[in-house]
């Protein structure tokens, strides 16, 4: 039994009341499952509800097959309504450069999502989340690539840390994987002469947690900033499954690193096309990401249901 310290004062009683409302070991903000901390990944949707904001995420995508290149500046907010239910909202500004044409800039489509935390298994460092995202038509500049139709995207997001494997394999235990499996269902079959197929989407992030290595496996002497880093590789693919476009898979591979601090994290990844359809060359993405629950633990960092 964990030992409990004495000298419980009024402040502690107030804290106890707060903790009774939000049980320890239940759903915690920003990616905890037991002793495992999952950072927010850039490409792969996170398997946890959270109070976080990406402000901003800047992407320079690899040139497409036709030589066009897209730059995005994106903002995303995740907010918990209850400890297990949350929503997301995001948008981006896009600039599209095509060979021989004037570059076009404008807002991308508004993206919203609802998320339900299916489970958090601290002992096995596992997380599961169901999400339903919507990419809204007619909410961005069509000339810059925004759609004129809405797409609904159900998904299952998961995370698993390897800390529960035998301690005989110590240096494998800091590994963790997160991933998404989902579909995009466009609400319009075609836009002009181009089809809008239903797509199957899958993404994975394999990360090595140096914080976990230091705290729970072996203190190898890493100090800041290296003891707060997560080298990782993310991959994401999308495959049309109907309307004559089956098999035309597009995807990227993104090796990079995330540094997670007390109140925010910084991530940087290269973007490498994984298929010929995706493009050629390389791009990059950087993200500044804040933990609202740590910045504002007594106000907007709490679930909305606990504001009053």
């Amino acid at each position, binding site marked *: 039994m964990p*030992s409990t310290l004495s000298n419980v004062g009024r402040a502690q009683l107030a804290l106890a009341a707060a903790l009774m409302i939000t049980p320890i070991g239940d759903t915690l903000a920003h990616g905890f499952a037991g*002793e495992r901390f999952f950072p927010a990944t850039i490409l792969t949707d996170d398997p946890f509800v959270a109070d976080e904001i990406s402000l901003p995420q800047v992407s320079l995508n690899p040139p497409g097959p036709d030589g066009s290149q897209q730059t995005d500046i994106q903002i995303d907010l995740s907010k918990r309504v209850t400890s297990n239910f949350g929503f997301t909202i995001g948008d981006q500004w896009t600039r599209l450069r095509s060979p021989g044409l004037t570059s076009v800039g404008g807002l991308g489509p508004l993206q919203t999502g609802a998320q339900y935390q299916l489970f958090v298994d601290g002992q096995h460092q596992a997380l599961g989340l169901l999400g339903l995202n919507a990419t809204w038509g007619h909410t961005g500049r069509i000339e810059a690539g925004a759609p004129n139709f809405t797409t609904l995207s159900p998904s299952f997001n998961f995370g698993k840390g390897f800390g529960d494997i035998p301690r005989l394999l110590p240096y494998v235990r800091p590994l963790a994987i997160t991933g998404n499996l989902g579909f995009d269902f466009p609400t319009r079959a075609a836009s002009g002469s181009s089809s809008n197929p239903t797509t199957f989407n899958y993404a994975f992030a394999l990360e090595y947690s140096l*914080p976990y290595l230091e705290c729970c496996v072996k203190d190898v002497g890493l100090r800041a900033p290296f003891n707060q880093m997560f080298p990782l590789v993310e991959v994401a693919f999308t495959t049309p499954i109907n309307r004559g476009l089956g098999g035309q898979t597009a995807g990227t591979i993104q090796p990079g690193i995330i540094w997670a601090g007390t109140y*925010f994290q910084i991530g940087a990844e290269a973007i490498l096309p994984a298929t010929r359809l995706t493009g050629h060359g390389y791009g990059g993405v950087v993200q500044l990401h804040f933990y609202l629950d*740590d910045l504002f633990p007594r106000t907007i960092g709490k679930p909305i249901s606990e504001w009053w």
Partner: protein
Amino acid sequence: MRGILLALAAGAAAFGVASSARAHAFLDHSSPAVGSSLSASPPVVVLWFTQDLEPAFSGMTVTNEAGQQVDLGNARIPGTSPAELRIGVKPLAPGTYLVSWHVVSVDTHPSEGTFTFDIKP
């Protein structure tokens, strides 16, 4: 483009600096060190965290390979060092020992962890 990035970065930095809040407590280091091998039994196990701790909801245990508790049950946070958690242990025979801790930072964020250390024969 550079102007936009600088403006966003400046706004974000101001956003972060404006808060005086605290956050999750992570284990910074410990004695014995995580995963270390010692030639003699330590008198105490001491953990240092990245945030100040809430005494009423923070604690730890030390157990041997049989799961038997070998600490003295006197976990405490020194008044002069609110980010430190320490507990006395019985004289330890050679073997592997598991330290299990759970803490709540002063802003109510809980965290937990485990690690082992060895006493060499």
